Protein backbone atom coordinates (compact mmCIF):
# COMPACT_ATOMS: atom_id res chain seq x y z
CA UNK A 1 0.00 0.00 0.00
CA UNK A 2 1.22 3.48 -0.83
CA UNK A 3 1.34 5.86 2.14
CA UNK A 4 1.66 9.63 1.75
CA UNK A 5 2.49 12.13 4.49
CA UNK A 6 1.85 15.86 4.46
CA UNK A 7 2.84 18.98 6.45
CA UNK A 8 4.15 18.28 9.96
CA UNK A 9 3.32 14.58 9.71
CA UNK A 10 5.69 14.47 6.71
CA UNK A 11 8.33 16.50 8.54
CA UNK A 12 8.27 14.38 11.67
CA UNK A 13 8.46 11.10 9.74
CA UNK A 14 10.99 12.51 7.30
CA UNK A 15 9.30 10.95 4.28
CA UNK A 16 6.85 12.17 1.65
CA UNK A 17 5.73 8.68 0.70
CA UNK A 18 6.52 5.03 1.14
CA UNK A 19 5.20 1.60 0.14
CA UNK A 20 4.41 -0.89 2.88
CA UNK A 21 2.95 -4.37 3.02
CA UNK A 22 0.08 -4.34 5.50
CA UNK A 23 0.83 -6.63 8.45
CA UNK A 24 -1.83 -9.09 9.49
CA UNK A 25 -4.46 -7.63 11.80
CA UNK A 26 -4.22 -4.14 10.30
CA UNK A 27 -7.66 -3.59 8.79
CA UNK A 28 -8.70 0.00 9.57
CA UNK A 29 -7.18 3.47 9.32
CA UNK A 30 -6.68 3.49 13.12
CA UNK A 31 -4.98 0.07 13.00
CA UNK A 32 -2.53 1.35 10.40
CA UNK A 33 -1.79 4.53 12.37
CA UNK A 34 -1.15 2.42 15.49
CA UNK A 35 1.16 0.14 13.51
CA UNK A 36 3.08 3.09 11.99
CA UNK A 37 3.50 4.64 15.43
CA UNK A 38 5.69 1.65 16.44
CA UNK A 39 8.12 2.06 13.54
CA UNK A 40 10.51 4.56 15.11
CA UNK A 41 10.98 7.90 16.78
CA UNK A 42 9.74 10.06 13.88
CA UNK A 43 6.61 7.95 13.49
CA UNK A 44 6.01 7.98 17.24
CA UNK A 45 6.25 11.78 17.19
CA UNK A 46 3.94 12.10 14.19
CA UNK A 47 1.28 9.89 15.75
CA UNK A 48 1.83 10.91 19.39
CA UNK A 49 -1.71 12.30 19.48
CA UNK A 50 -3.51 10.13 16.93
CA UNK A 51 -6.76 12.09 17.32
CA UNK A 52 -5.27 15.10 15.53
CA UNK A 53 -3.92 13.17 12.55
CA UNK A 54 -6.40 12.97 9.67
CA UNK A 55 -6.43 10.40 6.88
CA UNK A 56 -7.64 10.07 3.30
CA UNK A 57 -8.17 6.73 1.60
CA UNK A 58 -7.83 6.81 -2.18
CA UNK A 59 -8.14 10.60 -1.96
CA UNK A 60 -11.33 10.69 0.10
CA UNK A 61 -11.51 11.70 3.75
CA UNK A 62 -11.59 8.64 6.00
CA UNK A 63 -12.35 8.11 9.68
CA UNK A 64 -10.31 6.05 12.14
CA UNK A 65 -12.76 3.14 11.81
CA UNK A 66 -12.84 3.21 7.99
CA UNK A 67 -11.73 -0.23 6.67
CA UNK A 68 -8.66 -0.09 4.45
CA UNK A 69 -10.33 -2.60 2.11
CA UNK A 70 -8.77 -2.65 -1.33
CA UNK A 71 -7.54 0.95 -1.19
CA UNK A 72 -4.27 1.56 -3.03
CA UNK A 73 -3.30 4.85 -1.39
CA UNK A 74 -3.64 6.31 2.09
CA UNK A 75 -2.51 9.72 3.27
CA UNK A 76 -1.94 11.01 6.81
CA UNK A 77 -1.91 14.74 7.55
CA UNK A 78 -2.77 17.40 10.14
CA UNK A 79 -6.12 19.19 10.15
CA UNK A 80 -6.35 21.24 6.98
CA UNK A 81 -5.59 24.96 6.93
CA UNK A 82 -6.16 26.02 3.34
CA UNK A 83 -8.42 28.73 2.00
Amino acid at each position, binding site marked *: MKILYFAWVRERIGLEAEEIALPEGVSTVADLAAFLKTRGEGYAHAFENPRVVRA*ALDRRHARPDTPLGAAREIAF*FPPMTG*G
Partner: protein
Amino acid sequence: MFTVRIQSEDFDPAAESAALTRGRTDVGAVVTFTGLCRAQDAPGGAPLIALTLEHYPGMAEEEIGRLIEEARARWPLLGATVIHRFGRMEPGDNIVLVVTTSAHRGAAFEAAEFLMDWLKTHAPFWKLEERADENSWVPAKDSDDEAAGRWG
Protein backbone atom coordinates in the same frame (compact mmCIF):
# COMPACT_ATOMS: atom_id res chain seq x y z
CA MET B 1 -19.69 26.11 -16.07
CA PHE B 2 -18.04 24.55 -13.04
CA THR B 3 -14.27 24.69 -12.73
CA VAL B 4 -11.59 23.78 -10.18
CA ARG B 5 -7.96 24.75 -10.63
CA ILE B 6 -5.02 24.11 -8.32
CA GLN B 7 -2.04 26.15 -9.45
CA SER B 8 1.07 27.97 -8.28
CA GLU B 9 0.47 30.94 -10.61
CA ASP B 10 -1.61 33.94 -9.61
CA PHE B 11 -5.20 34.24 -10.83
CA ASP B 12 -7.34 37.07 -12.17
CA PRO B 13 -10.70 37.32 -10.37
CA ALA B 14 -12.09 39.62 -13.08
CA ALA B 15 -11.28 37.22 -15.92
CA GLU B 16 -12.76 34.31 -13.97
CA SER B 17 -16.02 36.07 -13.21
CA ALA B 18 -16.25 37.42 -16.77
CA ALA B 19 -15.95 33.83 -18.03
CA LEU B 20 -19.06 32.89 -16.03
CA THR B 21 -21.24 35.75 -17.33
CA ARG B 22 -20.07 36.44 -20.89
CA GLY B 23 -22.86 36.17 -23.47
CA ARG B 24 -25.42 35.09 -20.86
CA THR B 25 -28.62 36.84 -19.86
CA ASP B 26 -29.75 34.43 -17.12
CA VAL B 27 -27.16 35.42 -14.49
CA GLY B 28 -28.53 37.95 -12.02
CA ALA B 29 -25.89 37.67 -9.28
CA VAL B 30 -22.13 37.14 -9.24
CA VAL B 31 -20.30 36.75 -5.94
CA THR B 32 -16.52 36.57 -5.82
CA PHE B 33 -14.44 35.85 -2.76
CA THR B 34 -10.70 36.44 -2.84
CA GLY B 35 -8.56 35.29 0.08
CA LEU B 36 -5.23 37.07 0.42
CA CYS B 37 -2.06 36.55 2.45
CA ARG B 38 -1.99 39.05 5.34
CA ALA B 39 1.14 40.42 6.99
CA GLN B 40 0.05 39.97 10.57
CA ASP B 41 -2.24 37.58 12.34
CA ALA B 42 -1.81 38.38 16.00
CA PRO B 43 -1.23 41.90 17.28
CA GLY B 44 2.25 42.01 18.82
CA GLY B 45 3.46 38.89 16.98
CA ALA B 46 6.40 38.92 14.61
CA PRO B 47 5.21 40.00 11.14
CA LEU B 48 4.63 37.29 8.57
CA ILE B 49 7.32 37.14 5.87
CA ALA B 50 5.62 34.51 3.72
CA LEU B 51 3.22 31.57 3.67
CA THR B 52 4.05 28.32 1.95
CA LEU B 53 1.03 26.29 0.98
CA GLU B 54 1.50 22.54 0.71
CA HIS B 55 -1.25 20.47 -0.89
CA TYR B 56 -2.17 16.88 -1.76
CA PRO B 57 -2.09 16.85 -5.57
CA GLY B 58 -5.01 15.01 -7.09
CA MET B 59 -7.06 14.93 -3.91
CA ALA B 60 -7.20 18.75 -3.72
CA GLU B 61 -8.94 18.98 -7.13
CA GLU B 62 -11.19 16.00 -6.40
CA GLU B 63 -12.25 17.20 -2.95
CA ILE B 64 -13.07 20.72 -4.15
CA GLY B 65 -14.97 19.16 -7.07
CA ARG B 66 -17.04 17.22 -4.50
CA LEU B 67 -17.69 20.42 -2.53
CA ILE B 68 -18.95 22.09 -5.71
CA GLU B 69 -21.27 19.14 -6.38
CA GLU B 70 -22.59 19.49 -2.83
CA ALA B 71 -23.15 23.23 -3.36
CA ARG B 72 -25.00 22.53 -6.63
CA ALA B 73 -27.26 20.08 -4.82
CA ARG B 74 -28.14 22.80 -2.29
CA TRP B 75 -28.47 25.94 -4.45
CA PRO B 76 -29.56 26.65 -8.05
CA LEU B 77 -26.12 27.71 -9.27
CA LEU B 78 -25.46 28.66 -12.89
CA GLY B 79 -21.69 28.45 -12.47
CA ALA B 80 -18.85 28.23 -9.98
CA THR B 81 -15.08 28.57 -10.21
CA VAL B 82 -12.67 27.69 -7.41
CA ILE B 83 -8.95 28.36 -7.77
CA HIS B 84 -6.52 27.53 -4.96
CA ARG B 85 -2.84 28.37 -5.21
CA PHE B 86 0.04 26.40 -3.71
CA GLY B 87 3.67 27.36 -3.10
CA ARG B 88 5.17 30.43 -1.46
CA MET B 89 3.08 33.59 -1.07
CA GLU B 90 3.96 36.95 0.40
CA PRO B 91 1.66 39.42 2.17
CA GLY B 92 -0.73 40.96 -0.33
CA ASP B 93 -0.67 37.91 -2.63
CA ASN B 94 -3.84 36.11 -3.68
CA ILE B 95 -4.36 32.62 -2.20
CA VAL B 96 -7.84 31.45 -3.09
CA LEU B 97 -10.71 32.50 -5.36
CA VAL B 98 -14.34 31.41 -5.27
CA VAL B 99 -16.81 32.74 -7.86
CA THR B 100 -20.47 31.73 -7.87
CA THR B 101 -23.24 32.78 -10.24
CA SER B 102 -26.98 32.37 -9.92
CA ALA B 103 -30.22 34.04 -10.99
CA HIS B 104 -30.63 35.55 -7.50
CA ARG B 105 -28.27 36.93 -4.89
CA GLY B 106 -29.19 34.63 -1.99
CA ALA B 107 -28.00 31.47 -3.74
CA ALA B 108 -24.79 33.08 -5.00
CA PHE B 109 -23.87 34.49 -1.56
CA GLU B 110 -24.71 31.34 0.37
CA ALA B 111 -22.95 28.99 -2.04
CA ALA B 112 -19.79 31.13 -1.99
CA GLU B 113 -19.74 31.15 1.81
CA PHE B 114 -20.45 27.42 1.94
CA LEU B 115 -17.61 26.69 -0.49
CA MET B 116 -15.15 28.82 1.53
CA ASP B 117 -16.21 27.32 4.86
CA TRP B 118 -15.90 23.74 3.59
CA LEU B 119 -12.75 24.43 1.65
CA LYS B 120 -11.09 25.61 4.89
CA THR B 121 -11.90 22.38 6.70
CA HIS B 122 -11.96 19.81 3.86
CA ALA B 123 -9.54 20.78 1.09
CA PRO B 124 -6.10 19.18 1.65
CA PHE B 125 -3.93 22.30 1.99
CA TRP B 126 -1.58 23.22 4.83
CA LYS B 127 -0.05 26.61 5.56
CA LEU B 128 3.52 27.00 6.80
CA GLU B 129 4.16 30.47 8.20
CA GLU B 130 7.57 32.01 7.77
CA ARG B 131 8.35 34.70 10.38
CA ALA B 132 11.55 36.40 11.45
CA ASP B 133 11.82 34.24 14.56
CA GLU B 134 10.57 30.86 13.34
CA ASN B 135 8.63 28.83 10.79
CA SER B 136 5.50 27.10 11.99
CA TRP B 137 2.53 25.19 10.66
CA VAL B 138 -0.72 27.09 11.09
CA PRO B 139 -2.99 25.26 13.53
CA ALA B 140 -6.56 24.56 12.42
CA LYS B 141 -9.11 27.00 13.85
CA ASP B 142 -12.09 25.93 15.91
CA SER B 143 -13.94 28.86 14.30
CA ASP B 144 -13.46 27.23 10.88
CA ASP B 145 -14.96 23.96 12.13
CA GLU B 146 -17.90 25.93 13.51
CA ALA B 147 -18.32 27.83 10.25
CA ALA B 148 -18.38 24.56 8.28
CA GLY B 149 -20.66 22.95 10.87
CA ARG B 150 -23.42 25.55 10.45
CA TRP B 151 -24.33 24.09 7.03
CA GLY B 152 -25.61 20.87 8.63
